């Protein structure tokens, strides 16, 4: 059981028989399993990536078609409780200031679990566990969230969603504006969540190195449609698609191609990750 879109159209102006509003998303069909997937969503700004992520946990309801999340079928007529869906599918927004409100970091992270029916003690325990996982040092737990740095705030916001223990975790451009070290920490955290906790991770990103290094599947969005659904390696080898939707190769690959042109190295298969380039260069890496 996971998330499945069947011929989903979406417009922000809602469903109306009389008027036809322009659709932001058009005829989306996609299946994402609820376990151990690692999906990247790429595409230009305004192509509907954020809108898509919000359909996944019932923040937006489709104007036509069906979004099945776990066992529930969401249509434009859906009128039931959305909380079970939000419990299963956690969505991390880009800007943490939209969700931090409590007096202390710990309380803020515990807010989510307590909404989903955990007791106070359980919530605090979960909060501590996930604040530790995102790498926030313990002396910050009792601080007011608003006195933290931007990067720390984002960590608290992410912990706030992780603490609800959803099966599917969606991140909307999580690495934008983070420094190199925080970026790496965050991506490694996602890797751990994916590999050890078997969570499905969906990440909206413009960073192709992240796509190549971490994800197992890429959805390319263009003007509201999914135009490509492949593995990263397949996508990066498909120069036609890359050119058509003006997507970049990872920096590593561009560097490798340049080095080949200069006659420094030679290869048949372009390396897409740092590791594979390093292997090409030195051959000593395991």
């Amino acid at each position, binding site marked *: 059981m996971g998330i499945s879109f069947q011929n989903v159209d979406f417009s*922000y*102006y*809602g469903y109306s028989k009389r008027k036809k509003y322009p659709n932001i998303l058009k005829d989306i069909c996609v299946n994402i399993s609820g376990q151990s997937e690692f999906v990247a969503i790429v595409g230009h700004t305004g192509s509907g990536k954020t809108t898509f992520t*919000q359909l996944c*946990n019932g*923040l937006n309801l489709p104007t036509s078609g069906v979004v099945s999340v776990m066992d529930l079928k969401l249509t434009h007529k859906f009128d039931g*409780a*959305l*909380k079970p869906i*939000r*419990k299963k599918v*956690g*969505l*991390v*927004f880009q*800007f943490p*200031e*939209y*969700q*931090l*409100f409590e007096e202390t970091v710990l309380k803020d992270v515990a*807010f*989510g679990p307590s*909404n*989903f029916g955990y007791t106070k003690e359980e919530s605090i325990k979960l909060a501590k566990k996930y604040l530790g996982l995102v790498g926030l040092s313990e002396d910050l737990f009792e601080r007011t969230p*608003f006195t933290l740095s931007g990067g720390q705030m984002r960590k608290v916001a992410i912990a*706030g*969603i992780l603490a*609800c223990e959803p099966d599917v975790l969606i991140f909307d451009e999580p690495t934008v504006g983070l420094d190199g070290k925080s970026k790496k920490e965050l991506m490694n955290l996602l890797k751990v969540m994916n590999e050890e906790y078997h969570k499905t991770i969906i990440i909206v990103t413009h960073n192709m190195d992240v796509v190549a290094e971490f994800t197992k599947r890429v959805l390319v969005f263009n003007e509201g449609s999914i135009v490509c659904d492949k593995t990263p390696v397949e996508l990066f080898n498909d120069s036609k698609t890359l050119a058509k939707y003006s997507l970049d190769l990872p920096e590593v690959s561009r560097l490798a191609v340049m080095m080949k042109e200069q006659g420094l190295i030679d290869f048949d298969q372009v390396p897409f990750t740092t590791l594979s380039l390093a292997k090409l260069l030195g051959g000593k890496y395991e």
Partner: protein
Amino acid sequence: MNKVTFGSYYHSNSIIHKLDPRIKIISIILLMVGIFLIPIEAIYMFFILLGLLLIFIILSKVPFGKFLKSIKQITFLLLFSFIFQIVFNRTGTVVATYSINISIGTIATGVLVYTIYAFIKKFVKFKMTLFFMMFILEIIIFKYALIDQSFFNYSLNIYSNGLHTGFYILIRVLLLVVMSSLLTLTTKPTDMNVALEYLLSPLELLKIKTSIFAMMMSISLRFIPTLFLETEKILKAQASRGVDFKESKLGDKIKQIVSLLVPMFVVSFRRAEDLSNAMEVRGYIPGAKRTKLNELKIKLRDILSLVVVVLLFGLCITSLILVKVGVL
């Protein structure tokens, strides 16, 4: 919340839209005062005003429905004051009698009609029309549908003065509402703001900085849609953490409201800070003299329309004087 439009401005290119907003505001104020001056004996004046207003509405190219919408918002007020007058004003001659028969039969039918109305209401668009249909049907039922023994009988006499005063109040309020919506429908909020700044500028002599207030107004107008969008984002972010107003207990609800309010304040303060810095960088000094990008200029059509309005105002005063002197 997706269709964020502030105010009721309706875009069109009519002559009314093009009139100088200052002239429009002055005209509306004059006409409103005029309406209040018209005495009840000179009720025919209202028809002149109504006719003129109709011409303005047609000239403005704003669809009629827009005006009906603003009238709709005060239907109950209108209805209530009209019925109040009819029931309680007992001077003049009796025009009509309405007898109410209260019996088990009529009450049961009345309740039945209301239940049907409440049921149908959910499925139709024209709720107001349906309400009136229900209302009239109830009146008919209580007057005629007497099948069994009535145990209470009440006759309501409708007096001529009650009818007269009721009508007087009705048309007065109607005119005021239509007139003010004519102003707001044909004037952009920003233009209105500029015009108010001009009109209030004499207050500068009293050392009240009207330009600052005008700037505050225009900034608020500008940021209302933005804040709506931000609120939506906050709502969504908290909904992802399980905030759900539909199905939580009261104690949880309070916490959940706090979870919306605090980020609202944080985001607005941050915006305000950024904006004030950006304004300062571009040389804005509160209260300092500034030039205007769009100077308002009085044109011939503005003068003409003002003349018409002043004449009308004069007519209103004349009617008052004539009635007071006893000529009419």
